[in-house]
């Protein structure tokens, strides 16, 4: 079997590309300016490989540009010929990793995750420290709903995980939490061509959920949400595992709880903008729920110039933040500037990774807060 079997699978889509460059609105191409870092250029590169006009040996020194993609998905939205571009980026990265190995930073996060179950290089036994710090002593029960906190909220953005638990408690929702038995969902590895590792994490998480009798999985991270809701069923099918879990994002749950009057929100007068996380919006089509939650909380939502389907990526996803820090920061700053241009002082998002990155990019100029934190404060 040839290594580029994956390319073969995608051959028809690759040949469909009209080279029209509508996808030039890619936030990475906008910063970099070279065809090699544009969606069109990448497709043309793959076409070149398929046609054997480019040899694998020749891509040395340029293949890293293929990884300068946050998997934000805006190229797919505007694509003249409706090509499933994200799938192509991910599959092609897999081939490149097989041939050339992962990029340095991606290898680092791989090694760290292999050892500790998270890409941050933190110890596995510290994963549930945030939970232990909670003032109320929550008992971990056997419940149908499991809260999957994810690596970023567990190790970097604790306040988001704490707010989720606080809200579940206020609304009287029974839930379980896997603590140290929770592993990275695998999203960073799926996005950076290291699917093998994501499959290992899938197995660990799956085993744990089955053991706990879980029926429903709640995530507060958009990356985890996409991975568990969209990628896990595919992996399960490949492995021959049954998949019958319901997966929800906290923005959906918040709306449900408010509508059902299980969560009372004190209306606050506040002006803010909402940043659509790519993995929640474009990848999963969730635009309205977070907006409706904000509306019900009395928040005056002012939209940035690029929003919803056309939203500008924060710049961090797809392994870009770890490997190409400056690029990620440039895109992040552009997003922050869009918020500044409409005169708001607060950006609300619904993903710990977006929060982490936009907070760094805003350098204290704006407050960056997660939807769940805000609602926790108001309820």
């Amino acid at each position: 079997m040839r290594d580029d079997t994956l390319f073969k699978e995608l051959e028809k889509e690759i040949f469909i590309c009209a080279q029209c460059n509508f996808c030039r609105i890619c936030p990475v191409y906008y910063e970099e300016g070279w065809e090699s870092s544009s969606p069109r250029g990448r497709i043309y590169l793959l076409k070149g490989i398929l046609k054997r006009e480019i040899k694998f040996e020749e891509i040395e020194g340029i293949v890293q540009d293929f990884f300068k993609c946050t998997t934000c998905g805006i190229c797919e939205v505007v694509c003249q010929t409706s090509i499933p571009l994200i799938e192509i980026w991910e599959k092609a990265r897999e081939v490149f990793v097989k041939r050339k190995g992962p990029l340095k930073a991606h290898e680092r996060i791989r090694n760290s995750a292999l050892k500790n179950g998270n890409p941050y290089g933190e110890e596995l036994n510290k994963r549930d420290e945030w939970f232990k710090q909670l003032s109320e002593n929550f008992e971990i029960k056997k419940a149908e709903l499991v809260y999957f906190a994810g690596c970023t909220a567990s190790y970097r953005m604790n306040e988001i995980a704490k707010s989720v638990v606080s809200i579940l408690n206020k609304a009287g929702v029974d839930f379980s939490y896997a603590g140290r038995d929770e592993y990275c969902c695998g999203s960073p590895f799926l996005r950076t061509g290291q699917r093998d590792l994501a499959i290992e994490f899938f197995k660990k998480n799956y085993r744990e959920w089955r053991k706990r009798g879980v029926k429903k999985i709640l995530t507060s991270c958009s990356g985890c949400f996409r991975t568990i809701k969209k990628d896990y069923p595919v992996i399960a099918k490949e492995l021959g595992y049954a998949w019958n879990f319901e997966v929800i994002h906290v923005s959906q749950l918040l709306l449900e709880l408010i509508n059902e009057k299980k969560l009372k929100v004190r209306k606050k007068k506040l002006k803010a903008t909402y940043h659509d996380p790519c993995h929640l919006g474009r990848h999963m089509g969730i635009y309205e729920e977070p907006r409706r939650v904000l509306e019900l909380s009395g928040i005056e939502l002012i939209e940035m110039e690029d929003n919803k389907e056309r939203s500008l990526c924060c710049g961090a996803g797809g392994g870009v933040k770890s490997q190409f820090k400056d690029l990620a920061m440039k895109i992040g700053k552009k997003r922050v500037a869009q918020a500044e241009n409409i005169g708001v002082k607060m950006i609300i998002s619904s993903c710990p990774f977006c929060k982490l990155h936009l907070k760094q990019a805003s350098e204290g100029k704006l407050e960056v807060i997660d939807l769940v934190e805000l609602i926790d404060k108001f309820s």
Partner: protein
Amino acid sequence: MKSIPNSIHPVQLYLYSHDITSPPFLIKLFISKPKAVYQPRNENEILEILNYARDNRLNVIPRGAGTSGYGGVLPYSPYNSIIIDFFRMKEFEIDEKQKILIAEPGVVWWDVERELNKVGLSLRVYPTSAPASTIAGWISAGGYGVGSLRYGGIAENVERLRIADFSGVRETEDIHLFSGLHGTTGIITKAWIKLKEYEEYNAVAFHVSIDEAVKLVENWKNYIYSAFFLSSEYITAKNQVFRDDVQYEVPEKDTLVIVGVENSKQLLNLSNLKIGNPQLGEHLWDLRFYSMRVKRLGPTLIISEVILPYNSIPEYVKKMKKMGAMIEIWFNKNNVTSLSFFLADERKVGYTLAWRKSIKAMKLAYSLGGKAYSTGLYLAHHSPKVIEEYYELLNYKKKIDPLNLLNYGKVFPKGRLPTLMKIAELIS
């Protein structure tokens, strides 16, 4: 030169050696890779590149978004060339009072439109590749676009150009020396484009034959902004590829879309036919940039683009339908632009033969008083027929570019490709 952003990586060069066409094997023999790609940030850097090219006898190929289909931006083998990509020159200003846009070459049409609308202005004309194509790219390729029914071709809507060549930089109002000439007579460094007030458009669709469509447009010409016709075969194909995106299927009939500023009712009354469908009109108008979506059925699309006088369109359309073409026609002030699409598969043997369809389409257009839409590399041998004042332009070219380095072989035929193309036309 070294300080100008550039790349010489062989794969990068490969990525800059195409436009939207997938030429067959025989033509590919004439396409090579450039020696380097440069991305100048200002006019001085363009001049530096030109001097370097002259000193080293390198052909200079200006490249916008590469969204044309005539080979105008392709490196012509076996000649050595460098490509200038204007990605880093995309500043623009809007003179609201004079209603003029002043833009650097790499500005993208639709980026401009977005900003113009904020101040109550709008482009008069733009290409159907507007979401990607650049200001200088379209001016250099020449031709017509959306709005050309009311405002004419792009050349009529450019007020002034700033041009760099081997003797320096100058400003000119002689637009015909540059528009449609693919950068063979100088490099556009700035353009002044005429604008108009922003207007809300209403689009209405009519299921009429091509004969009726031509009559209707001729009658309404002075009242409307734009009009286009889609053949039933093209709509059938569109229905297959847009199925997931839209709620309803478009009736698979020949369809004319009229776009005007009057409200739909007035347009309907104007027709006296009472068969207009505003909802369908708006829908097809919204999809105007997505003419190549049907490529999903290919995966290759062979496109033949020709200019025709109004009176020969019905015959042309009927004959093209017999050839199995899917047709889109845009009505201009004094002629029409006709696009014929053929599905093909470049991976299969026999693809070269499929290209003959586009040659046949062009020959048919000539027999009906029409001509090729543009020339570039592939159709350089048509230039004397396509370009008015061709010989005057040739003299101008010789004067300003005695070494023939500005986009060698484009528009002004040179090398062996024109002979091959002539033979292909003879046997098609």
